[in-house]
């Protein structure tokens, strides 16, 4: 009996280590497949190079970084205020029963597959930008033009996609603020709004910030939605109506028809992506530790 139990325990340990092994494997294979090309081409030229024309042997990913960055920042600009507003709405304003419903609605948003979001963006947002937003922009710049496949489309859809992350973590953070702070604030004569903005949100700061960082990570890593609606043009954008290509979208799109060197270059793009996401996640974890509760 004892040996049986010991064997079981070892097997369980093995399973637990599976995740760690997976991460190790992934890291090894991604780096192994991509590093040679990156080293050959020159890391600096790879990252800072402004021309991505793989069929020409040009592997400068700066336009891709610019594409990812612009769409992500756009998503954050829309998603952060909306996310925090929804979190406050959920934590402090809605009564318990409607709050559960609203929370379920947010969870539903999280469950929709990214390709469906991309499809929706394709058939609704892209034409809408072309038909309704473009004329507005043209008031200020008559030469501006767009197919609708744009940073704007990507930013809006990504904002909706990262909303659940920001809302649920921020809501948890706000709800976790000790009730004593609320009581003290109200007893001093502050009204609910003042209590929320001057006491609760500052106290929930670290949770809110990490939710934003995680949301940012999700936006950067998102593939299918941006693939369908940003236009996939590897150029540095000049306006929100311009088409861009993201790191993720480029990999997905070009992998199927890439030559061996091109494929390796795509793995190299994967390395860059991987490193960025890892750094972001680490920052999120550190934020909680450092700011955790006792800030000014």
């Amino acid at each position: 009996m004892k040996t049986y139990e010991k064997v079981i325990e070892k097997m369980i340990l093995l399973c637990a280590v599976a995740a760690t092994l997976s991460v190790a494997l992934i890291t090894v294979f991604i780096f192994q497949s991509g590093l040679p090309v990156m080293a050959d081409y020159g890391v600096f030229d790879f990252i800072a190079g402004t021309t991505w024309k793989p069929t020409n042997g040009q592997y400068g990913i700066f336009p891709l970084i610019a594409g990812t960055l612009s769409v992500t920042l756009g998503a954050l600009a829309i998603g952060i205020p909306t996310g925090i507003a929804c979190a406050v709405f959920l934590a402090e304003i809605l009564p318990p029963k409607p709050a559960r419903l609203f929370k379920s609605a947010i969870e539903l948003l999280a469950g929709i597959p990214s390709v469906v979001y991309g499809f929706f963006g394709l058939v609704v947002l892209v034409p809408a930008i072309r038909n309704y937003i473009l004329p507005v922009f043209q008031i200020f710049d008559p030469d501006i033009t767009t197919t609708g496949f744009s940073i704007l489309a990507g930013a809006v859809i990504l904002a909706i996609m990262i909303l659940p992350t920001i809302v649920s973590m921020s809501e948890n953070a706000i709800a976790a603020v000790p009730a004593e702070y609320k009581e003290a604030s109200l007893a001093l004569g502050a009204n609910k709004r003042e209590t929320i903005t001057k006491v609760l949100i500052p106290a929930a700061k670290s949770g809110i910030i990490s939710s934003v960082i995680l949301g940012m990570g999700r936006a950067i890593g998102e593939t299918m939605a941006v693939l369908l609606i940003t236009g996939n043009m590897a150029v540095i954008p000049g306006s929100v109506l311009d088409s861009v290509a993201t790191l993720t979208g480029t990999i997905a799109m070009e992998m199927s028809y890439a030559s061996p060197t091109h494929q390796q270059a795509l793995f190299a793009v994967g390395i860059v992506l991987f490193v960025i996401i890892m750094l972001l996640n680490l920052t999120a974890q550190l934020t909680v530790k450092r700011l955790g509760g006792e800030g000014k």
Partner: protein
Amino acid sequence: MSGVNTDRLKRKKSAANGVFYGVIGLLAALTLACLIIIIGFILVRGLGNINWEFLSQEPRRMGREGGIFSVIVGTIWVTLVSIVIATPIGIASAIYFTEYSKEGRLVKIIRFFTEVLAGIPSIIFGLFGFAFFVVFLGMGWSVISGGLTLSMMILPTLTRATEESLKTVPMSYREGSLSLGATKWQTIVKVVLPCCRPGILTGLILGIGRAIGETAAIMLTVGGSLRLPSSLFDSTRTMAVHLYMLASEGLSEEKTYATAALLIIIVLIINTAANLIGKKLGTL
């Protein structure tokens, strides 16, 4: 605060309150509106095109005509493989965390990496799956390559859900069982795990949901063949990938909406199921 005009102050605060609640209400309403519009729009345009032919016929002319039968089958195969692999490993991992380990450095490291795994974007999984399963292990674009890759992706979901569930089992159950002479493993299997069925089920359902919606990783590991798969090593197509193909190539508006609507319906079912189980558990 002598000298401060309280009436003026009251008005300023009233105005600020109005702006604050107004903006929040607006943004919350917009969020709900987005949800309703996205789901409604696709269902309205797609439901009408879902019929028995759609579900039972094979695609013809690259999906322009016919149904998506082989795609449905492909989805089921790939999802099944990933669940079959991820579930036992996920449950075992959770058991390790709650039942066998002491909170030491090793556990912290393992936990850390489980979180890391959960944060890796799907395209990276796709690249890895391609490099490792398709090329290095020589499995080619196949159900098994995709299933294995997918299992790594949904592992954290299953581990987390099981762990949450295990934590809610009171210590007294374990103590009671052990004091009767049962071994640790017997206790886990006969006493602790049975309590966790709803939690594990929720994890399973959520994992399935994630698997069905996954596209990028599947594209790079399973390929996109429209033929009915006959073995684990055949290439096939999943619904999510099929939607992408139809949408990006613009092959048939009807079929695209129908596929999207089907995916949405599956998501709605999964979400509702998870919620209902959650209610039973009392965790909602």
